[in-house]
């Protein structure tokens, strides 16, 4: 069968399109003018400004901690939950998995408001803990769905065979189940990290007096005016990600 080149072209074009706004953002981070609609010449001043802005970096740090914590916790809860739900097949599982998915089905702002009320009812102090709980609630569904989806198509006979050959539950899970659902966990993780790293609406309500997250910072700053500084930050983050990726490829090539 002759291999068509259409898929490769299609993937390349769509992927390139998703990068358009990123590239524009990077270009405009070098814009001397404060106003995005005017090109005022090349300048590095926003980067200088950026490095002076400690608040922004504190916020970035918080967001990374939050993103990692929420993703990790939801990966554990979501994956184990999906496996357990599949294996036990209780009637009530349907109900619980439906409920667990609701946080991504209702508008963020109402979720934020409800969490604000519920957390203060429960006596939690607003801050990182409440942020992590709230973010975990909307990260679980992504992981849970991805993993369940993967499990449905899995051949149950493999697990059974392993058991018949004397493997215990833990061995079956770690040696058979986990490796085959890893791609699903990872796509769930990537999605949920992106969601956590971008959430403003819920975070605004559940954060405390000492914790600001990056999206809150960006959002409220965009309200008060355009900030090429934020573009500069985005540019740096993309650049760092790309560089690490590239170095990693080089490293792998060497070792292969």
């Amino acid at each position, binding site marked *: 069968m002759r291999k068509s080149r259409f898929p490769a072209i299609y993937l390349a074009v769509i992927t390139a399109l998703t990068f358009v706004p990123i590239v524009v953002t990077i270009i405009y981070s070098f814009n001397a003018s404060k106003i995005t609609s005017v090109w005022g010449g090349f300048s590095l001043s926003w980067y200088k400004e950026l490095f002076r802005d400690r608040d922004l970096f504190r916020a970035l740090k918080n967001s990374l901690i939050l993103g990692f914590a929420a993703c990790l916790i939801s990966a554990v809860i979501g994956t184990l939950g999906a496996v357990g739900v599949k294996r036990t097949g209780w009637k009530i599982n349907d109900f*619980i998995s439906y409920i667990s998915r609701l946080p991504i*089905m209702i*508008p963020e702002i109402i979720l934020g408001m409800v969490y604000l009320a519920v957390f203060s009812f429960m006596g939690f102090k607003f801050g990182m803990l409440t942020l992590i709980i709230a973010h975990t609630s909307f990260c679980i569904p992504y992981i849970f769905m991805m993993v369940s989806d993967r499990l449905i198509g899995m051949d149950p006979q493999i697990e059974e065979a392993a058991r018949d050959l004397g493997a*215990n539950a833990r061995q079956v899970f770690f040696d058979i189940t986990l490796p085959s659902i890893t791609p699903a966990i990872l*796509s769930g993780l990537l999605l949920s990290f992106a969601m956590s790293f971008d959430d403003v609406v819920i975070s605004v309500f559940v954060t405390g007096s000492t914790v600001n997250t990056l999206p809150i910072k960006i959002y409220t700053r965009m309200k008060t005016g355009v900030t090429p500084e934020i*573009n500069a930050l*985005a540019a740096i983050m993309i650049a760092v990600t790309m560089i690490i990726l590239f170095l990693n490829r080089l490293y792998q090539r060497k070792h292969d």
Partner: protein
Amino acid sequence: MMGSDGRNRNTAGGSLSAGSGSGRAKKNKRKRSSVWILMMPLYAFTIVFVLFPLLYMGFLSFMSRAEVWGFVNEFTLGNYKRILEPLYLNTFKDSLKLAFISTIVNIFIGYPYGYFMARLDEKWKRIMMLLLMIPFWTSGLIRLNGWIIVFRSNGILDKLLMGLHLTDAPLKLLYTYPMVVFGMIYALMPFMILAVYSSAEKMDWTLVEASRDLGAGAAETFFRVTLPLTMPGLLSGVILTFIPSMGLFFVADLLGGNKIVLIGNIIQQQLTKGRNLPFAAALSVVLMVLTSLLIALYRRIAGTRQLEGLI
């Protein structure tokens, strides 16, 4: 499939679900009795941090609004009655319409992407997945702002087209309905792609080949083999894109110039300027019920009964 399920149910559920298929219980008396423990974190978290807050929201939707903020403990159906006003009904209708349009376009763009991605070799799969996600780790607002720079009058696109003499005046694309649809698709595309990808990736490609070998055409193979096999992924993609597009008011604000009111906007407005927590709660309850019904309906039409864990 049934075999393993039945067996697990017995050993795992213990006495709880001993009723079904108990005949096999003794045969497999191994240390697998604790599978249900795996679900306990999910159960605990869901009940405490999702179910309880949502019940609280349901409770709120029957309360009366307070003068300044919060609610008064007086039962009322007024919040639900108010939703029946044409203004709010129309907003629901418009939100559904926009969600339908953007989901359908998203299927046509995202499905092939996920499908093609699944056919790549391991190395390229990894690369594509990262390339797909990297833009989405940048704030959504920054990305929308990037699109605004591209699409606005005399912006990058206009300059490009005019430079090539394809157009001679600014297109004025921004703040139009298609622009909002575009924004929705852009914001939600990775959900569709990843969902389709994860189910296409585990698909048994030999079935496709077998179908071709047996003389089926490309189209026939696609509709009779590939599509049914990737249906679970497509369905979760639809859910992951359809539901958020009713509430993504950011996009309608920034790319649509606030000229399209989504149900998310109304809820937002009620909670902020309106300070009407109970009414916002009632709107959310209706939205939740509506989306659940739609999903159930879709599930029935698609006839995908194997999706037990999903919906």
